[in-house]
Structure formats: C-alpha cells, structure tokens
C-alpha cells in the first residue's frame, strides 16, 4: 500500500508535511552540503525586511535546559540583497521556498510583500507579526488586535501568493488571532514563534544576551506550543502549521493530532541537521504502522 505524505498549504504543494522553520536554516546554502534540500517539505528562509538590518550585539543565543534563547535581532540582507544573493541559489532546487517577511511599520510590511510579487521561485510568504526581538514593532503587531488586522489585510492586498500568518505566542488570545488572520484573508497560519525569555549570569550580574532578553525555542516550549496549536486549529478552517520544540517524529505527530496540517522544525536542526527529513520518514512509518494511507488521516485525529 502506498503511503502519501504530501500536503497542500494554501496552494503550496509539499512532498511531505515537514518544513524547516524561519531563522534556523539560513537561506539554504548553509545546510546544502549536509542534507538533501529536495527532501524537505518546504524551506522557510530567515525573515526579510525591506532594507538590510544589522541585528543585535552578541551574545545572541544562550542555551538553557532543553531550550535556546535567541536574540539575533532579525539580521538580514534586506529585500534587494535577498533577491540578488539568496533566492537564485534556491531556484536550483525542487523545494517550495517560503519567504518569511517583517517590517517596522505597516508600510514596510506592504513594501516587502509587494517586492516578492514578480520574484520567480517564491512559493509563498510567511508574515512574522510575532518576533520578540524587535523593540519598535513586530511584537506589537502581534499583540494588538486592531494593528494585527491592519497588517494582515495590508499584506493580503499586496500579494497574490499563498499567505501564511505567523502568530505571536499569546496563549490567552490565540483563537482570537487565528480567526482574525483567517478573516483578513490568510491562507494558513503558523505558530508558535519563540517565547519571550531571559537568562542572567550571576557572577557578572549581567544578562546573558546582548539584547537583555530574547525568545525561547526548543523542546522546552513544545507542550506550550502544542496547546496553542490545538486552540488555533479548533478556531479556524484554514490549515495550521505547528511549530515549537519538534525534535522527533513523535513530537510532530502530536502536533498533527492536535490539528496541524504541517509542521516546521527549528532548533532541532542545530543538533541534527537531518532532523526534518528523519521526522518526515518517521511520520511515514507511523502511517504504515497504523494502516493509514495519507498524512491527512492523522491531522486533527485527537480523541477526546
């Protein structure tokens, strides 16, 4: 019996439901010697803004128990830089490329979304309204319902590409934001981004991160992420992409059972660059073991 792992997210066809998460896989070439990019469900590239951004001073990450706090500060080469130096490499592969975008103002979100309209080799956009590492803007966009609607609607008006909205990890209102994204025309939602966090060096009494605080990712956040994905999936009809601490196939299957159509693997790639590919294989094994033909037979399969 054939097993079908393929999924479709708002028109983006993926060979399997396991993507690599924004900011953890660079722009593709960094891991190309280690893993076959064509076996990934999709590649979500590091967040792109209209102009180049230098990001935060080091230290930019700190390891905690089962997790990682990062405060990269959204360093990126900007729209033009990515179109010139980043995207051509990825066109050489047969894998959907999803560009993660962000801005400091609604106009910047519009500008960067519009900038990809003519670009060949972009399967879809993921709008980051949820990064904890930018002081002026994005965190607010994800934490204020009116502003959130304005940004999503504005980006929607500027792009015909499949549009994924990446939600802030705000547990108390996750269903509300999920519905708002759907209402404003998003084709899918993804969650969660890293969770605001910090660490202190008790000898020097200084914060361990140059930016003082950052966002926590990795296995430590998985149970929280799972709860939010479950809430979001119950609230909307559009597909949900589950993210947060996924490190093995069992983790990914939990998210699928909670209602996710696909998942993204972030921090786990640092320990095991082949994590996403191995997770996709593991999902296939699970389907076989349970006599299921298609990964959609798992999505939302949680029993009460």
């Amino acid at each position: 019996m054939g097993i079908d792992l393929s999924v479709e997210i708002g028109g983006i066809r993926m060979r399997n439901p396991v993507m690599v998460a924004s900011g953890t896989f660079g722009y593709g070439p960094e891991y190309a010697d280690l893993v076959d990019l064509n076996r990934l469900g999709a590649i979500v590239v590091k967040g792109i803004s209209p102009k180049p951004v230098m990001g935060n001073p080091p230290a930019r990450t700190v390891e905690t128990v089962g997790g990682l706090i990062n405060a990269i500060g959204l360093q990126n080469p900007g729209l033009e830089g990515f179109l010139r130096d980043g995207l051509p490499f990825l066109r050489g592969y047969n894998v959907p490329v999803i560009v993660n975008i962000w801005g400091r103002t609604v106009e910047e979100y519009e500008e960067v979304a519009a900038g990809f309209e003519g670009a060949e080799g972009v399967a879809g956009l993921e709008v980051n309204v949820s990064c904890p590492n930018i002081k002026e803007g994005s965190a607010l966009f994800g934490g204020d319902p009116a502003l959130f609607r304005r940004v999503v609607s504005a980006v929607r008006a500027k792009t015909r590409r499949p549009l994924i909205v990446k939600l802030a990890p705000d547990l108390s209102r996750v269903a509300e934001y999920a519905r708002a994204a759907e209402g404003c025309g998003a084709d899918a939602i993804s969650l969660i981004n890293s969770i605001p966090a910090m660490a202190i060096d008790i000898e020097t009494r200084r914060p361990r991160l140059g930016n003082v605080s950052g966002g926590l990712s990795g296995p430590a956040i998985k149970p929280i992420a799972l709860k939010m994905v479950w809430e979001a999936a119950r609230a909307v009809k559009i597909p949900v992409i589950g993210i947060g601490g996924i490190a093995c196939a069992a983790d990914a299957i939990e998210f699928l059972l909670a209602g996710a159509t696909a998942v993204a693997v972030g921090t786990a790639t640092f320990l095991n660059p082949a994590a996403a590919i191995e997770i996709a294989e593991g999902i296939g094994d699970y389907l076989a073991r349970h006599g299921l033909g298609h990964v959609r037979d798992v999505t939302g399969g949680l029993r009460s």
Partner: protein
Amino acid sequence: MRMENAQILEHRDIQGGYKRLVLRAPGIAPEVRPGQFVHLRVPHLEAAVLRRPFSVFDARDGALSILYKDAGHGTAVLKGAAPGETVSLIGPLGRGFPAECGGRMPVLVAGGYGMAALHLLARALPRRGIAFFGGKTADDVLCVDEFEALGWPVRIATEDGSLGERGLVTAPLDEWMKKPPREGVELFACGPMGMLRAIGERAIAGGWKAWLSLDRHMGCGVGACLTCVQKIHAPDGGWTWQRVCREGPVFESREIVWEDE
C-alpha cells in the same frame, strides 16, 4: 563539510584536566585544513540543544583528535564517553589559517586550547619558526613535545611561574621581537580575546600580518543562525558582521573591529 558518526578510538587524560579524544572519522579527517574545527554532539547530553565546537588537533589515517578541558556541562559529560561509543561530528568547519607565510618567519602564539588549534598549522607551514605558549599554570601548557618534534622551538610563560618565565606570553614574545628576523614575521595566534588583541596590536604596529583564531559561542556552526558574529571592517569605512563559524574562525588582525573601538 559533512556529518559523520565517529567511533571513539581513544580517550585519555593528558594533563591538568585536559583530555585527548581520538575519533575514527574517515570522511572528515582527510579534508581538515589547519585551524578548522568540528561541531561535536556530546553523547547522552539530553538537556542540550546545541553541539560544541572543538579545533582539530590532529588528523591522519582516517582519524582525528581534539584536546579539550572541562569547561561546563557539555565537556563534563563528554569526559565520560568511552572508547567504542560513537559521537556525531559536523566538519571540517570554518576557513582556518592560511598555511603559508610569504617567505617571512612564522611565529605561533597560543594560550589554552590554542596550542591544539595551531598544531596542524605547525606541521603544514613551509618553514619552521618559533612558538610562544602561555597559560595560568604549567598544567595549561600543552603539546610542547609535539611542537618540538616538528622542529619548532617553544618559549613558555605561565602566570604563576610554574613553567617557563612568570607572566603573560606577550613578555617573551616582545623580548624576541626586539630583534626580528630580517625577512620579517607572520603571526598566527589562538587563545583568549585579550591575548589575541595584544598580538593584533603588535602586528599592526610592526607592519606584520597576524592571523587570529577567535572563540565565539556557536549555535548551528554552519552559518545559518547568525549567533557567532564578529564586527569586521568594511571596505566603505563602516563595518559588517561576519560569521566566525563560516568566514572565520581565523581573521587577519586588520579586519577585526575590537569591541570598544
């Protein structure tokens, strides 16, 4: 660059808490150039989400070795790994040292594990020069025999005077540099940031080149996460970030923007 499950062939104490770990890595070992490193996944370190970077001390016959010291949780657990176990490696990583000195006399300067990082270079350089090693105590001065066997005289300084002269490694270096060889010198260094900066300043003052291997905390180790950045002078007079794991860990001293500049 590749990922390889490497079997532990040998794992023994050398001195002062340092251990030597020898791994069978037929894929990675032949590709290693001087100053490159491997990103090692510490086995049984369940709470960790990151690998740990280590300079390659030696690479031959399909095996590579590292010298390391207990510096925290990961290295403490690594110490317990037994021969026969496998360890996942990614490598070789980074650009390493240029294995040439343009006809000048090569001068190696190392503190702590820097001696390990310079060992392959000492073997690969087209001519022998002189090495200066520094440490807190005699326990921190590694591989002197190996360097001498390769034909390098080694001058030593320790902060407590337990080996060589008392003080910082820059003291014997400065003394020696009062009469530099006629053909000039090319410096290669690995060690704590303060030491590297002192070497860089001397190189700039003397008109020499100094190739400095930086130590930065790392996430991915391959250039994807932007954890390990260093400020580097840009051609337009400004600066840019470069990734120590990809464009480094070795930079020429003039490229580096020192933190409080």
